[in-house]
């Protein structure tokens, strides 16, 4: 097992190095006209094209720029913002807390809800519950995030004359106000995520229900509840739990939109703002942090999967 874990960790190192490389060279895609446009923008303190190119590492060779970027990761700065003369990492870290709260709560809710709906849908297969659940799942996956958000805000106002509070309050500063604030954004983000999880759970559970050992359990006269709980769920939910890790990229995409709708001062709004300002070093930093989180989540899932399923370990 230790050998398996080490092999997986070692296998992910080239990926991370390549990710850093991709992030460090992407400024080269920026056409010259865009650099000119940055000069016209009055909010920048930068004086000329050369200075911008210097700051973006565009006038150095690709290996040099890559090495410089590695150095900036090593000293923990991730480069310097083009506008505020501030290191990139503190800027990102300062905006992390709202996003983490949003993501963790959405993950918990959709994990519980998605698994429950998925299991119900599979166990009561082709019943009215199954059809309703599948209809809901397909609809939630079909409606874009920002429409869900609009509905979540509008409907209570329309029916009960109650609007969810729209001013960001951290759960850690004021748990009660924070709870009411996060209600709407978390529901928005959890809708699509729980639909995706329900879909996965249904497929996984159906697959297990076709296994021979389930038929054996039934034919030796075990009550249906015991069969489902002891024989089906224990086997079907393990891959689902590990698949939750894969959903993290999904969650990151969703939180960009959700933060934007509810004006949450998190990493997603920072990204949109910095893209609009053409503050490329911060955008680079955000891309790198997001990519690393997803890569590490995938690595964690792989390792966890190896613990759960011994057959994987040997391959």
């Amino acid at each position, binding site marked *: 097992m230790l050998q398996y874990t080490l092999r997986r960790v070692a296998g992910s190192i080239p990926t991370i190095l390549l990710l850093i490389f991709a992030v460090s060279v992407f400024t080269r895609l920026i056409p010259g006209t865009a650099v000119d446009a940055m000069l016209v923008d009055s909010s920048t303190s930068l004086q000329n094209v050369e200075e911008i190119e210097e700051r973006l590492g565009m006038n150095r060779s690709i290996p040099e720029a890559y090495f410089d970027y590695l150095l900036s990761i090593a000293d923990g700065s991730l480069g310097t913002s083009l506008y505020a003369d501030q290191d990139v990492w503190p800027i990102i870290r300062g905006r992390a807390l709202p996003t983490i709260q949003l993501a963790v709560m959405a993950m918990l809710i959709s994990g519980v809800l998605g698994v429950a709906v998925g299991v119900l849908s599979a166990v009561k297969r082709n019943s009215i519950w199954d059809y309703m659940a599948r209809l809901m799942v*397909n609809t939630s996956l079909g409606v874009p995030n920002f429409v869900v958000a609009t509905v979540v805000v509008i409907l209570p106002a329309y029916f009960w004359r109650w609007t969810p509070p729209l001013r960001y309050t951290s759960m850690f500063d004021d748990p009660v106000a924070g709870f009411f604030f996060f209600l709407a954004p978390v529901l928005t983000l959890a809708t699509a995520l729980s639909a995706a999880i329900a879909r996965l759970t249904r497929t996984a559970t159906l697959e297990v229900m076709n296994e021979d050992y389930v038929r054996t359990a039934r034919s030796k006269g075990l009550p249906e509840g015991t069969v489902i709980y002891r024989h089906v769920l224990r086997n079907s939910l393990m891959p689902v739990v590990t698949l939750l890790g894969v959903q993290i990229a999904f969650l990151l995409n969703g939180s960009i939109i959700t933060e934007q709708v509810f004006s949450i001062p998190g990493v997603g709004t920072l990204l949109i703002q910095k893209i609009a300002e053409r503050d490329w070093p911060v955008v680079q930093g955000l891309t790198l942090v997001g990519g690393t989180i997803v890569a590490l989540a995938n690595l964690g899932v792989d390792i966890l999967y190896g613990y759960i399923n011994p057959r994987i370990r040997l391959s």
Partner: protein
Amino acid sequence: MAVTAPSAQPRVFTSGRAARTARWLVRFIQRDPVGISSGVVLVVIVLASFVGPMFLPYQPNALGDTNIAAPSLSHLAGTDQYGRDVFTRTLYGGRTSLTVGFVAAFVGSAGALGLALVFTYAGGKWDYVWNRIVDVNMALPGLVLLLVLVTIFGPSVFTIAVILGVRAAITGTRVMRSVILSTKTEDYILGAVSLGASPVRVMVRHIVPNVIAVSIVTSTLAVGGYITAEASLSFLGLGVQPPTPTWGGMMSIDGRAYILRQPWMLIAPATMLTLTVITANMFGDFLRDTMDPRLRGASGRRGGAGSS
């Protein structure tokens, strides 16, 4: 609709070609009515978007004289804040959104197939390096990458579709690679090789026909995602730029401000978008159940009612 006509009275035909076709059609539809009907709805949506506007009296960006009018006989879905006909704009918006979806799906599936063929055949270190690139591509959160690239290359229908498609091509090689690798060990491939077939001939004549079904299925299932991605970009103001109508743009820029008092501005595009994404997904599930040889047996064993 003409397709379903013979199935209404299948027993009128007793012999010959027509009867056989009719019986085949009935069985085909009975096997998965939901899948078939979602395909029909999808075709209707495509026709309405690409052919429909020719029969409409309004131009999508023509300013009318009544702003924010409720739905009526002259404006089926009402008008928006500039007096533009919402129904017309929804159909034209379908052109934009569907074009993004289908072009991205085509670029993605063709690219994934081609790249996977090249790199699995090249093998060795090329295969290894390519797989690391795929890993990096999958690690980068999609919307972040899309936002950055659209900012750099400019937000047009073409760039958005190509960016989505290229990314899908890179990601899709993972699936195609595993399918090609399992096909490569089949006896008929070994037979073709021992008969002296060139690698290109083996690829084109023996591997591609066997993996193309998987490619079509994955790209159909992805169309909904591309359309939603374009809508999300429009919502963030970085999608296809106004006044060009897109479903996402109509719902975010125009519709959201008026949702309580004038909901029709949002309802028409939202319905079309949701309907398209749902039917594309269900049709993709149906194609997977019927076309993918690996699942054909499995769905039969499970009773064939689909396993989405």
